[in-house]
């Protein structure tokens, strides 16, 4: 900028040189424009960089905000009910008694039962796609189908469960002589089991594909059969990865709301066995938060959300940590 200013001064003071310098002036004007532009560019660049930083900071603030909001909003219930809230057995908003144990138990029962049912299937899919048939149109079809299982909205699982699963479970219950309600923890676990298959299956598949072929070939050359290779090479090698997949599935199952709400029966008493009706943390929030007008009632439900938040976050972070460790 300064040089160009000097130049113009010079050209002005020596008119005789105008013809020769006019060319130079044009050039100088050009450089001036270019420099102005590059100044603008530099400013835009720093604004751009800064806005990237700010937006990324917003992500952190968002998560902290969620956490703080949940904590602050559940303070009334923490104050009024204390820690005993978590193992109180009765939930009766009318009499202002809030105990979350039935829902904790309901959540744990449905989730672990679902895990128990789904793990053989998801591991089978993982081994099928990762080891036996990694290529071809049939495995491709299976892979896409399993991914579609994750894509179907949970409200549709719930509706289908209501129309198809509930009558089926009712029949089963008459056969084994328990009250044939149809709704309940067992039905929800069945639906959940279907819904969480894709999470551990797809992760398990990619883990199994990462097993170095030299290891497998070494085992084969020692005369191992396919099953022996899977049992003593592939599964030990991928153990932590498979475990991470199960954890992610569990995280899903714990927080699943709609499908469970529609088939679990929504009763607030303690579940007696796996066929009794119940409620999970997520389903009780879905059912009652909209109409929870009392201060403590509202806060008690939000505290359930806080518990759910903590549990799922811890489970997910552990799972993610295992995966990154494994992938490196």
């Amino acid at each position, binding site marked *: 900028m300064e040089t160009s200013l000097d130049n113009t001064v010079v050209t002005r003071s020596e008119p005789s040189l105008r013809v020769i310098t006019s060319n130079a002036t044009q050039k100088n004007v050009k450089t001036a424009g270019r420099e102005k532009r590059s100044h603008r560019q530099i400013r835009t660049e720093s604004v751009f960089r800064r806005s990237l930083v700010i937006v990324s900071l917003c992500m952190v603030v968002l998560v902290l905000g969620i956490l703080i909001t949940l904590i602050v909003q559940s303070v009334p219930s923490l104050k009024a009910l204390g820690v005993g809230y978590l193992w109180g057995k009765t939930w009766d908003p009318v009499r202002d008694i809030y105990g979350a144990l039935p829902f904790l138990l309901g959540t744990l029962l449905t989730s672990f039962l679902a895990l128990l049912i789904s793990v053989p299937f998801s591991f089978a899919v993982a081994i*099928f796609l990762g080891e036996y048939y990694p290529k071809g149109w049939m495995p491709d079809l299976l892979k896409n189908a399993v991914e579609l299982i994750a894509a179907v909205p949970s409200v549709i699982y719930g509706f289908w469960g209501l129309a198809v699963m509930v009558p089926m479970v009712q029949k089963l219950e008459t056969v084994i002589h328990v009250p044939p309600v149809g709704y309940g923890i067992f039905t929800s676990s069945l639906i959940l089991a279907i819904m969480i298959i894709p999470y551990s299956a797809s992760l398990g598949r990619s883990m199994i594909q990462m097993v170095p072929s030299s290891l497998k070939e070494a085992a084969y050359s020692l005369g191992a059969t396919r099953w022996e290779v899977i049992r003593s090479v592939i599964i030990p090698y991928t153990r932590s990865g498979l475990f991470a997949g199960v954890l992610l599935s569990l995280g899903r199952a714990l927080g699943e709301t709609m499908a469970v709400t529609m088939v679990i029966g929504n009763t607030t008493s303690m579940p007696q066995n796996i066929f009794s009706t119940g409620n999970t943390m997520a389903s009780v929030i879905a059912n009652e938060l909209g109409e929870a007008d009392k201060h403590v009632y509202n806060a008690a439900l939000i505290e359930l959300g806080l518990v759910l938040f903590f549990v799922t976050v811890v489970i997910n972070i552990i799972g993610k940590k295992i995966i990154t460790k494994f992938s490196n």
Partner: protein
Amino acid sequence: MSTRIKYRIGKSTAFQALTVVLSASCVIPLLAILFYIIKAGITKINWSFITNVEKPVGEMGGGVAHALLGSIIIILMAALIAVPIGIMVGIYLGENKTSKLAYWSRLSVDILQGVPSIVIGIVAYIWMVKPFGYSAISGSIALSIMMLPIVVRSTEETLKLLPDSLREAAYALGMPFHRVILKVIVPCGISGILSGVMLSVARIAGETAPLLFTAFGCQFLSADIRKPMETLPHVVFKYAISPYNEWKELAWGASLILLLWVLLLNIITKVITRKWKVQL
């Protein structure tokens, strides 16, 4: 062959057969759901079903026009909020791999990805509904929080895959940072970013839980984002648990539309990723 070897081979084959059977049976529920929903829903769908709004119980010919409109508005608004933010965070994470802020914001994204949708619903309820009442915009905010991690992740992963030489070439020509990003890096990775956006839309299109106490639902055709709005997943839920048979019938039609729309989004994403060979 000795019996021992025969036994081992037999065991191996048996396990393989078991794997095949178990894997194949995973597809059965999916097929059952698709078949059942299509069978029950196809007869309900006709022109009046798509163009009419909810009618009181007992009156024939109710439809889901209000829910379709509401779903589209709420999803578009959610995308409008989440996509720019998500892409920016993704760019930051892709360009600054080791900074402290990158670590924390990556952790935040991971946390956000694991948060159950109902908890996000609660938070949107506290932030938006408690002060301002039920509104469509609060539902969009809840859904946009759910979209964010997917958009961020796919953007970050895509940018990481681009070769450094691309960046270096652009810098060597004297391009400033923002132009390198906006004119070189983002256009090169646009396929990955787009499929991430599509995937995130597909993921939230069927979400009901965060909308239960944010967008809430409404019986009329409404485009006012400050008022409650009906959405397709919520209408399925509302009709499905209602005691009236006519409403249950409507629910089948609504679920078929919802299912087709979600599957379509997923298939489009698949096609994009396959065509452009994106890894998500």
